[in-house]
């Protein structure tokens, strides 16, 4: 009897184990160490975090923005010993297989995807409508900024406006004509400008204001030579510029972040979080050791004598912008704009990267006015900038001379800030300028200055994965 009971237990035991084994939940574990993406975007806090994450991704992009916009110009160069890192951008030897080209493409699309995710997922999340509208506007501003960079670097690019969740979707995008991309940028910026606040409290410094969106929109118009539209919108922005303008020595460097000249900048912070900038170090000549900044420099983006000489005598901006370090008898022209002398480590710079500031917007406005044949009004704007630089006013110039004056002014005002290559291409003077530069300085190792160099090649990895992507002319 007792034995029989035992057998029953054993059988029961097996039945239980059988049930246990078949239980689906046993192998459906919730990861303890992971926050799954699905279900994350469910409240206002998570949307805010997602926005912060999106801004955070800008740090990487703007750490290296100079390499894609200053090096391929007459402003700066990579010192020969550091050419392995960025030499191709300086010498126009970039190729479609280049990691640098791929990074530029990938990083911008990363930020675009982060903004698309917010735009796609915010709708059902319960929160105050005004907040929701603002978050949408911020995401659109950033998306527009990214496409603005992309279209200037690569020309036609895939226009991804939604989160890609399946592999098949990733292959459904082809390159869109530049005009289509610009149209989307304009749309995003117009919609953002309608919602974004005019200012923020210090806790939100770094988010785009209404004027940032409008200013960027004006710049976008300028790149399309839509001077009428540009003049209209830039006039609104310029009207909001502080008067007098923020002194030039209060715009850059430590302690001057988010000053009155800044419309939009990428925020960096020191303190061991790995959230500081790296450009503070990369613009400093290597041989200087620790005499200029706390760590030894990298010589990746040192200035050139051509830029040094482009400043008019007495220009107050010159000592703030550029300096010489003598290594024996060898001069290094280097940028002072982004110096952070006490930087504790190579990636711990605290100073921000200006993406859009009044110095830029005012000159763009001047340019728009001039192109719209309002040269005298243009000179008024130009002289605001010259006055701040301690230079005499320009008066009575012809439209062509005014154009040249504005071009020169942009170069010295915005040197090292990631405008020069784009401006040269936009003004259609890239080829003659760089050919003259190459000849004048007898630059060794520099590729032929050709039409194709106005844009980068489409990365070969992307074309290999998606053969529908065409290549830019001259890179096939």
């Amino acid at each position, binding site marked *: 009897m007792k034995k029989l009971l035992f057998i029953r237990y054993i059988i029961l035991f097996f039945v239980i184990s059988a049930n246990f084994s078949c239980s689906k939940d046993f192998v459906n574990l919730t990861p303890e160490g992971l926050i799954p993406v699905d279900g*994350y975007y469910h409240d206002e806090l998570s949307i805010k975090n997602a926005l912060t994450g999106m801004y*955070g991704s800008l740090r990487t992009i703007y750490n290296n923005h100079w390499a894609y916009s200053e090096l391929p110009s007459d402003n700066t160069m990579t010192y020969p010993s550091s050419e392995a890192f960025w030499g191709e951008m300086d010498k126009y030897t970039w190729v479609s297989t280049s990691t640098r080209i791929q990074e530029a493409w990938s990083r911008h699309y990363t930020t675009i995807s*982060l903004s*698309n995710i917010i735009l796609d997922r915010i709708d059902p999340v319960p929160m105050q409508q005004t907040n929701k509208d603002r978050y949408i506007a911020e995401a659109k501003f950033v998306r527009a900024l990214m496409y603005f960079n992309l279209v200037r670097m690569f020309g036609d690019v895939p226009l991804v406006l939604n989160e890609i969740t399946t592999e098949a979707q990733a292959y459904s995008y082809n390159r869109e004509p530049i005009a289509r991309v610009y149209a989307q940028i304009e749309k995003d910026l117009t919609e953002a400008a309608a919602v974004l606040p005019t200012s923020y409290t210090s806790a939100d410094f770094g988010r785009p204001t209404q004027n940032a969106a409008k200013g960027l929109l004006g710049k976008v118009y300028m790149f399309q030579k839509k001077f009428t539209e540009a003049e209209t919108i830039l006039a609104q922005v310029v009207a909001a510029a502080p008067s007098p303008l923020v002194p030039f020595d209060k715009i850059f460097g430590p302690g001057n972040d988010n000053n009155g000249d800044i419309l939009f900048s990428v925020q960096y912070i020191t303190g061991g979080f790995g*959230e500081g900038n790296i450009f503070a170090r990369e613009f400093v000549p290597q041989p200087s050791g620790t005499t200029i900044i706390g760590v030894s420099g990298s010589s990746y983006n040192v200035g050139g004598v051509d830029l040094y000489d482009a400043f008019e005598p007495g220009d107050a901006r010159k000592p703030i912008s550029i300096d010489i370090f003598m290594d024996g008898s060898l001069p290094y022209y280097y940028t002072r704009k982004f110096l952070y002398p006490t930087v504790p480590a190579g990636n711990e710079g605290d100073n921000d990267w200006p993406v859009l500031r009044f110095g830029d917007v005012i000159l763009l406005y001047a340019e728009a006015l001039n192109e719209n044949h309002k040269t005298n009004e243009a000179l008024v704007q130009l002289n605001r900038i010259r006055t701040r630089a301690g230079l005499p006013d320009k008066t009575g110039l012809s439209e062509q001379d005014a154009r040249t004056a504005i071009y020169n002014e942009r170069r010295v005002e915005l040197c090292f800030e990631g405008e020069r290559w784009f401006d040269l291409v936009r003004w259609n003077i890239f080829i003659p300028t760089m050919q003259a530069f190459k000849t004048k300085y007898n630059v060794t190792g520099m590729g032929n200055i050709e039409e194709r160099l106005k844009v980068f090649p489409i990365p070969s990895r992307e074309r290999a994965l998606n053969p529908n992507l065409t290549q830019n002319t001259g890179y096939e």
Partner: protein
Amino acid sequence: MKFEYHCKLTLPLARQRKGVLPKTLLAMKLAIVLLFISALHANGKVTAQQTVTFSGRSVSLQTVFSAIKKQTNFTFFYRKDDLKDARPVTVELKNANLQTALDAALKDQPLDFKIQGRTIFITRKPVTKPAPEKAEVSQFVPIKGIVRDSTGTPLAGASVNIKGSSKGTTTNSAGQFTIDANPGDVLVISYVGLETREIKITGTDVIEIAMRALQSDLSDIVIIGYGRQSQATVSTAVSRVDGRKIGMQPVATPGEALAGLAAGVQVQSNQGAKPGEAPVIRVRGVGSLSSSTEPLYVVDGYPLQTSEAFSIINPSDIESINVLKDAAASAIYGSRAANGVVIVTTKRGHRGKTEFTASGYYGLQTVNKYIDLLNRDQYLGYSKTQSRIRGVPYPAVFDRAPDSLPDVDWQREIFRTAPLYSMNIGATGGSENMRYNASFGYYNQKGVLIGTEFTRINSRFNMDADLSSKLKFGVSISPSYTDQYKQGTSGQFNTVAPVDQLTGVPGLVANRNVPSPLNSAMMLAPIIPVYKDNGDFAQPYDRALGYTTSATSVFFQSNLINPVSILTQVVNRSRAFRTLGNAFLEYSILDGLKLRTFFGATLENERNNASIPATATTDQSPTASFSNPLLNGIFASENVRNSFDWVWENTATYDKSFGEHHLNLLALYSAQRFTSTINYTGALAGTYVTTSVQNPLASPSRVGTVGYDDNAFVSVAGRITYDFKRKYLLTAAIRRDGSSRFGPENKYAVFPSFSAGWRLNEEPWIAGLLQKASINEFKIRGGYGETGNANIGSFTYLNSMNITSNYAFGNNRQFGATPTGFPNYLLTWEKNSQTSVGVDLGFMENRITFSVDYFRRISDGMLLSKDLPAIVGYATRYQSNLGKLRNNGFEFSLGTDFNLGEVRWNANLNLSSYRTKVLDLGGPASLAPSGSVFGWNNSYQVKVGDPLSLIYGYTVIGVFKNDQDLANHPQTTAGNKVGDWIVKDLNNDKKIDVNDMGVLGNGLPDYIYGFTNSFQYKSFDLSILIQGVAGVNIINGNMRQLIGGQHQNSITSYLNNFFDPETPNRDVKYPRPNSTSAVNPQNALVQYHVENGSYLRFRNITLGYRVPQVVLKRIALRSVRFYITAQNPFLITKYTGYNPEASVSTSPTNAGTDQGTYPAARTVGVGVNIGF
């Protein structure tokens, strides 16, 4: 013979009847009898219908049998030994029925017969003690003896008979017997599963008889998944390694001792003698490109989650290791068996009086090879020549008398003669209903590299109890503690390989890289002293040493750091406490039907602490020293991992014979769950404020994080094993696994397998032929199975939020979140399918055994990272089941077992080979190439259609001696100068670029082999283990700096063998030291540095002596054996580095690169085993 199956099943019965049966009768014999009885029952009556007609005078019994066989079609089944004592017979039979015929033939023979089905079983008649015949008493001498097994353990219940007489006895529980015999009589000692021995009586001394296991005998049992099976009826590929061959070697981990012992099992100690480091073990080739290629380890029935729990087993606790090699064998372990299954059984208790054992050994390890580097005088001359060619000044002190400079052999500064010792004590015994085995072991090994050490403390308790005649209970518990001091070795002088880095806090404190002391020691000039006068470690770049060439510069490079300073100060210590425990309950419901429930758990607590003190010189604090401690160089971290794993398995087995059909059925339910947590603590770099403690508390800015791991498996499985007449063998199994590791749409998979075997020696129509050829065993077997590789990490299928994408608005940091990774809800197992065929042959009663196997293994759906268009943004690639890989191979093993006079010689030779071929990479024709060592890029390329680990590099065909040469040969794209290497233009495009890199070698061996020999002569035993690989290359990465490195030390063969502009026409091997060509020793791998990595290594030689019984009696000990042992005493190789097994990477795609890897040590030691 089937009794192996049945002994367990029938033991309870035996006990019940012990009152009625002679106590001395062996349980095994009883089992045989019972088997026959049950067989008779199953078969009903004897149906001997046929008749026999035969007549013969003094013919052998075999002749009669074959006649009967011919006429009746009945087959005979008998042990050959049993017929030895049969007398010739004279019979006259006419139409006699079978019963009568057999009665007549066996009349007055010491034999009996039973008919079962169509088989006639001939057995010995039960031995009956004859009544003492008084008349003869005076002639007999009482002979005393003791019978032991080959380990020296006394054997209870062995039969002792006098040859040619019916007299016999059995041994008692102490293995002792007494028998009356005449001098000159021959004693026959037999024991189930052991070879029968005959001893001639010469005197009255106590006779000691050592019994040997039958090599590859029918009775050999192999452990298969969830069961055991007689080797004869196994139709799959299983290798069995006796635990004694593991336990006898002075090594830290059982894996190391496995090298060369089993065909198809490759053991590579790529970290040499790094104390406590487990080797890489691969079964039948490489099953994956990206996931683990480690086999599944099953210890006493417990499928382990990690191989560490295998590596910490005390080798002397191991009873046997069985390796399930083909998928047909391993598929019962389903989703984790793709790389084979290593089944470890530990020693369990025997019934009888408690026996104690104590053993210990002590050994000294030395580095058995030093690289021929330059000494001071050679260096000074070389350095001056280099400086002249480079056009750089050398320090003025070089021109002083050489005696005024130090002459340091840096290799000897970092290596030492290191002791190793081990102690084990054990007890085993048990009562009728309870048996146990308990052991305790202590192992300590200091490394030959200073700063390395390993200590292991193990204890184990195994117990089996018969709770009732039908209910069995067993428990095993094995707590262990290990303590390992590691030093980074692999890698370049300034950066060790990632595995050797000091672990920081993920995401917060980066892992800390330390310089590789081995590589540094080779590169440091002999003129650099170890210490400065003030007691600080000297650093080559210290201006105070005087090796300066101007007021500001230093001759030696700044990131080459004194290795002694690193080895004596950097601590990377890992301490682990592990407990593996399990218990089972087994219930025999019916005859043959058993239910078993098994529960096991593993608890692991592992603590890693790493520290770099303020006084240690590293690349981050190059001026730190004892007299100048630098706080900003301090690093300290403390990481604790706690993991818990449990497994619950329920099996039902049914084992039964129906006539000549034997059936074994298995059903299994299993569930396993693993959870693990790691807590990391460290401090932010540069925040340390005190040198008084060497842990994160020395900083006020401590940071920490936590990591989790979690997985679950649930399985059902079934297996059917069937044989007919032990002739036709069949096995089929199926397992269905579910795992948390896989995507929700692919959580379950089914793994089927089957195998079949045919024993030709059991076929009457060929048996005679085989007999003539002395072939007693001839088995053909083959099978197919599918298995999985689940080692793809946990939750790989999911994508998750990264919450460290922060942003500082103004100066207010806010915490951001971004998605990372691309989900793949279809993610699943890497699938392996394997077809395997083999032949087993036994000659001369298995004195020679031979096996050959061929296998073809396809790994499909390998986990590879698939590229996504970058426009996806948040992810650029994702894990997907893509690639396909093939392994083809064969294995061959030969065993012999002979008595050469008084010497018993046992040998086993195994040789195996496999070839890999990449069949598919999910689209791309190749994966991104990878470098071998820093500076040598694209050395390994995984391409569709190629084997893995092909080594690519340039082929040098000479040196440009003059402008003429420059004009005649293609140059690199950046151009060449006189003194550069001339490189072979492989693709004939008149320029040298990466497309001219060709295959220079193969990092995976063509053949691996092992050859073990053991000899026994009287009280002496000798064993020699040889192991080796052939057809393999190794990249000697140390040469990157030793050949033409600026101001570094070099090898003697480089002297006067480089281009010197002063003697441009000299024939030299190496280019000008300052060659800036794209192909120079520093930036390209060329054929000179791809060396032949084949080797033959004497793994172990042990000579033992067993103290004779007479002596033991006096000192009241059961057994004493002394031995001397040598591990890795000899190495035969052409490789010029320390260790041809070295590999910086454990990945099968990057095999065979040596750079600073830990050398293999030679150990010579003495030991003793005592039983009491």
